[in-house]
């Protein structure tokens, strides 16, 4: 086994440090521009912020879920991307702090926080037991506590594993991942109810949590593929990552594209055919105004086009092509969140505000900067992963 691989990524890949610097500068610039919006159009600022925030949070939570799934399922795809998964989850403390603006801007986002509105609305009075500010904050605190705890222990043990190939560490991580996935499933579901579904507090859909989790998994895979492609162009990973790894990741991404479409279509078909007043409202203003073009964009770019492209074996084995699809999917993920949030605030028709562009850029660049920052500190491959040899050991020793 090559001794150099155990060094921190920073020393092996000199491009990481300048990339991080550029990303932070770009993120800060976009953030400063966006802050103007806080004074010109405060409601819009928070709406766009929620979208941008959930987009980057989805990348981190998706990576957390994939990391835990990989602990249980194994597979070469997870061995080559394990450090990317880990770095992505370690952005969570930053994201925890970045959640605070949503709490501060809750009056602009959640109509149920207005006492006068609730006083006039029987349904909201019924829901007050759940939809009230103290409980909302307590739940958010619980979600972040659970996620941060999972991130903390998984990453700490992963670091221990770098030092010693003790199989007990791998077993411990597996045990935590089993319970952790269960905890993730429940917290991510209720977080999606809290932060997204309750924007329209009258509306409800039981598949919503699953739909959002599918989206998070897809965001995470797209990030992984893009990052791995970038890394595989330079040493040391250029000699280690082979088309098979991309093929596996591409297949997983295809599976998540299909899952997302399946969940979305299930929700649409069932609500459409039931046509009940309390449910169909969600689709009425989305499908009878200019928003329908956003819906159509999703059908094409979140499902049809990536689906057809990812069926091809050649595409999945060509990192450059796969990365382009992954970037397209990231854009589609953002549009999906836009579709979930923005129409609730502009029921008359499609409105795209400049903050819908600058805030995702700001948070996206900051997230990516943190991701690179976290990536630099550790070895780029989990050398003591129990499946390391099987996944790429032979290739690695050649280098």
């Amino acid at each position: 086994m090559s001794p150099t691989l155990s060094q921190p990524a920073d020393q092996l890949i000199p491009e990481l440090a300048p990339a991080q610097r550029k990303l932070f500068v770009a993120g800060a610039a976009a953030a400063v521009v966006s802050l103007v919006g806080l004074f010109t159009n405060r409601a819009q600022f928070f709406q766009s912020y929620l979208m941008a925030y959930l987009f980057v949070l989805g990348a981190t939570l998706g990576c957390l879920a994939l990391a835990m799934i990989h602990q249980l399922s194994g597979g070469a795809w997870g061995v080559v991307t394990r450090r990317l998964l880990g770095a992505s989850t370690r952005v969570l403390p930053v994201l925890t702090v970045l959640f605070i603006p949503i709490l501060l801007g809750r009056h602009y986002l959640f109509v149920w926080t207005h006492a006068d509105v609730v006083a006039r609305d029987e349904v909201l009075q019924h829901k007050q037991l759940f939809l009230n500010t103290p409980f909302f904050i307590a739940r958010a605190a619980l979600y972040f506590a659970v996620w941060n705890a999972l991130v903390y222990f998984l990453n700490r043990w992963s670091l221990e594993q770098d030092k010693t190939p003790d199989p007990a560490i791998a077993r411990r991580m597996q045990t935590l991942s089993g319970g952790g996935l269960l905890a993730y499933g429940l917290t991510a579901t209720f977080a999606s109810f809290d932060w997204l579904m309750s924007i329209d507090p009258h509306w409800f859909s039981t598949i919503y949590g699953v739909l959002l989790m599918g989206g998070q998994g897809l965001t995470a895979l797209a990030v992984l593929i893009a990052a791995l492609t970038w890394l595989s162009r330079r040493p040391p990973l250029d000699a280690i990552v082979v088309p098979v790894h991309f093929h596996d990741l591409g297949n997983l991404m295809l599976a998540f594209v299909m899952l997302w479409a399946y969940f979305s279509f299930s929700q649409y078909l069932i609500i459409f055919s039931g046509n009940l007043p309390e449910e169909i409202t969600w689709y009425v203003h989305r499908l009878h105004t200019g928003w329908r073009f956003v819906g159509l964009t999703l059908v094409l770019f979140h499902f049809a086009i990536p689906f057809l492209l990812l069926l091809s074996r050649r595409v999945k084995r060509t990192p450059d092509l796969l990365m382009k699809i992954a970037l397209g999917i990231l854009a589609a993920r953002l549009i999906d969140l836009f579709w979930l949030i923005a129409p609730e605030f502009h029921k008359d028709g499609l409105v795209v505000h400049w903050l819908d562009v600058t805030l995702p850029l700001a948070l996206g660049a900051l997230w990516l900067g943190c991701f690179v920052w976290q990536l630099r500190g550790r070895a780029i491959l989990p050398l003591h992963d129990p499946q390391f040899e099987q996944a790429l050991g032979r290739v690695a020793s050649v280098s």
Partner: protein
Amino acid sequence: MRAPATPPVIAPGHTFGTVTDKITSIVLTNKTPLGWWAGFLFVSMFAGLLAVSLTYLVLTGVGIWGNNQPIGWAFDITNFVWWIGIGHAGTLISAILLLFKQTWRTSINRFAEAMTLFAVVCAGIFPLFHTGRPWLAYWMVPYPNTMNVWPQFKSPLIWDVFAVSTYGLVSLLFWFVGLIPDLATLRDRATGRASRMIYGMLAMGWRGSARHWHRYETAYLLLAGLATPLVVSVHSVVSLDFAVSVIPGWHTTLFPPYFVAGAIYSGFAMVLTLVIPIRKFYGMEDFITMRHLQNMAKVLLVTGLMVGYGYTVEAFMAWYSANRYEGFMMWNRMTGPYWWTYVLLILCNVVTPQTLWFKRVRGSVPALFVISLVVNVGMWLERFVIVVTSLHRDFLPSSWGRFSPTIWDWSTYVGTIGLFLTLLFLFLRFLPMISIFEMRTLLPAAKVTEEA
């Protein structure tokens, strides 16, 4: 490189010859074991009961069942969904695990696929006979007829016709194509003239040439690709039978994935229920090892948790919706006249499988057998709860009703179990229950060693 404690997928010490001998000897023998006869006679009595029940039904009408207004669907649909769900394990094991390159599927896939087919047969009986006039069942198929009548394409019931028939057909093809090389082995090893003829015809001229194998591999992979969406689509369509309506308890967006998870859950429970006694009876512990049982136990735990997630979200949303009918539906499920079915369902499907978190439980064959039985019961109860408790009290209290199954409801249900097991006994006796040639590829001797 996994933890060394993991048991192997095939016990050490086997060679190509012993694998072939072991599996073919069950089929190519003149001495049918007495236990087989005893079991076969026992279960075929129940299959006979099914014949009696259905004959009486056709002669009399569906009035012999307990279905009524408002409970127009009861045991029939409960059983239909239960059987269709059981079939899903077979498709998942054979198609998805094949695509995921999970070699442990090899010794159980043949068996699970057979189970799928027989489960689809049993499932099909219920809607067919519930129409009351099964001889007119072809009216469900869209064909240009002189009456100029078409099925209602907007109805998920017609989607069911397509989904289930496609499922049955693809499962049959997949199973048969997978059998061909083994049928050829049986043909070559058979001593009797009749068996040589029959296996020879079924083997369709298989000679095992390189070209045959090449075609075979391509066809099998294509069929696996075709079967994969079916794992999801069939039970999604079944769930839509309920979900596209506006009945509280049926109309909920989570139904498609939640039904699919439940289907896989019940399917794996049934595989365990059947495989545990069979591996014991035929001494197949070398091929169907603890590794298989443990992996299936893990699938059971995961899908059980998914189903539990479904129950949780459903109950929460019934309250959160602030819709009084939704709220009442959940309240009625938990405290109404059928409360005990709901409580039992939670005990069977959510509480019991939590024991599978423990390695000791996953490693204990008797425990797994008991848990699998409990889950089978639980998944039946789940469908009963969904179908009956949602229907018996919907919007208008003046139209509320009760359902109690008649003797014919029970005899038809037990009868399909009899038919299912009868077919299974025949399968075990006349076809190789484990894929011989795929097992051989698992042997160390089959691995090409790489010399640099």
